[in-house]
């Protein structure tokens, strides 16, 4: 009786140890996966920061202005604006939001990607 109990207990202990080892191994693997994902996130964040800086660098007015002038654009003049109500027949102005007279053609893109 005692011998059987001992054998069962030993077997149980070994099984426990084995399960524990397997779980621990899996955990370690998952942890490594998480770490590699975190590293990847960090790298991507860093890349995004660089790309945002680059986008801002490329759209800096100092660079856009000569390019725009070379294409025949010039700063918008006051006379070029008309209140939407004063337009004959009430045609809507496309592309311009009311109250924002900036035309999309003479100013570089104002949009920045949404921050996280």
């Amino acid at each position, binding site marked *: 009786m005692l011998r059987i109990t001992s054998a069962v207990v030993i077997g149980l202990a070994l099984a426990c140890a084995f399960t524990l080892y397997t*779980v621990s191994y899996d955990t370690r693997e998952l*942890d490594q996966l998480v770490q590699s994902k975190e590293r990847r996130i960090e790298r991507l*964040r860093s890349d995004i920061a660089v790309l945002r800086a680059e986008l*801002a660098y490329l759209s800096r007015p100092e660079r856009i202005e000569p390019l725009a002038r070379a294409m025949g654009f010039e700063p918008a003049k006051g*006379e070029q604006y008309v209140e939407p109500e004063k337009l004959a027949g009430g045609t809507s102005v496309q592309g311009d939001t009311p109250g924002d*007279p900036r035309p999309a053609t003479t100013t570089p893109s104002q949009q920045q990607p949404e921050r996280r």
Partner: protein
Amino acid sequence: MLKAAIGPARHNLDPAPTYAIRSFAVALAMVVAFSAIGGQLVRLALKGQIVESRAAMTQPLTTSFWRPDILDRNGRLLATDVEAPTLYADPALIIDVDVVVEHLVQVFPEFDPVELRRSLSDRNRRYVRLKRGISPALAQRIHNFGLPGIAFRNEPKRVYPNGSLAGHVLGHVNIDNKGTSGIERYIDEAIGIEAAHAGAPGSLEPLRISLDIAVQHAVEDELRAAVQQFGAKGAAGVILDVNTGEVLAAASLPPVDPADRTQSLDPARLDKLADGVYELGSIFKTLTIAMALEAGTADLDKIYDVRAPLRVGRYIIRDPYPVGRPLSVREIFVRSSNVGAGMLALELGSERQRAYLERFGLIKPIRSEAGPIAAPKLPRRWGKAETITIAYGHGLAVAPLQFAATAAMLVNGGLFVAPTFRMSSPETARPVQRIVSPETSAAIRDLMRSNVVSPHGTGRRADVPGYEVGGKTGTAELPGRGGYIEDSVIASFIAAFPMSAPKYLVLVMLHEPKPTEATDGRITAGVNAAPVAGSIIARTGPLLGVLPN
């Protein structure tokens, strides 16, 4: 015999309980032992893992910091952090110091080989920082040498994608990415930065400031053109929202590159708007007349005999372009009569003049988010002579940004504003504080407008059709050794638009403009600063959302 000998002895020992106790003891020992082993397994399995991952996370500490991005009012990027490799050496791992030194000096000619060899030979050190913020291409080149003991670590580096745009406002950071001046310093003091090992790029909430990149560029561009056209030594310009004090553009030429800390040490690159104080000349007459109207000592139609020069002690104050007849207050403003302004101030008296200047915020030093604004330089003695000269803008030197805020108060209906680089919001609103009456403010608006539209006005060249520009010129001689230097002036123009309900205030300043053919050989503000202000308004009005009438 043997049996007889053993038999009784066994019998005497009473075998049954001994067996039970023994086997129980053995079983117990086994259970304890296995529990211990099991427990240890659990501990190692769980804790061993934690120890390992912690160790991986706590890398050697760096002294560098992540900073929040700076955005303009429309969300366009003014300053951000990127990761840049820092080159370092671990002398304990270096195999051949001479080879390492040879390769590094080849890439970085500025390294001193002797000094480098000494620091790399000290095997007790595990970390020798060689160069921060190197380019990825350079890092790759060094990596390709395959030198043991030479490695890289990424550290935050501040970059300014727009180059020198708004450089004076943004300020600088030091080698550890901590703010040392301008908005960068304000971020350290009021917003907060994050140690490099604890954070990541883009983890901090960006700071939106009141500048508008498009407007700022337009102002800088027009000023650059003016410096070239008039051969000026420098220029400055600011656009303020008259109702909130928000600075939409603040430019000072020659500019500073925020990425180059040494440029700020050059006195020529001083921020002329906030760090320098100047006698601003006749644009001060706006204040003198506002004081007289507010105190009730004069109205716009009161006549003063300005034909004779004013004499105080050994000083004689004359009008540079005398009209030869008595002038009304309106004409004193439009014709910019020094004698007239002096008479108005004398009528008011020194004490009241000082009290009003204090109320207008021109006596005490102020500060903005970009740092303290240079304190006004007051006359040592505030006598009769000083009262007269201050009336037309000499003898009292203030920072142009501080003056611009005062001018905004005079045209916005008479309410207090302070210059600010933060976006205004309901939380930043101050309690309304009245500086001058709405009537005085309306009169000043009327005067400034007539100075631009009247045929005799000094500000005629600032007019922009549809924008109802109003303004005042100022030409101040520069103080030199023992008096003023003739033909060396600061020409300035203070303007607001649209004058029926002003939204924006523009201040333009040209340092030592030269006479040109286009100006008929003159150097007064009416022929240089005024047209520059006009072109700034014509160009930025549409960007600011002001539609012409």
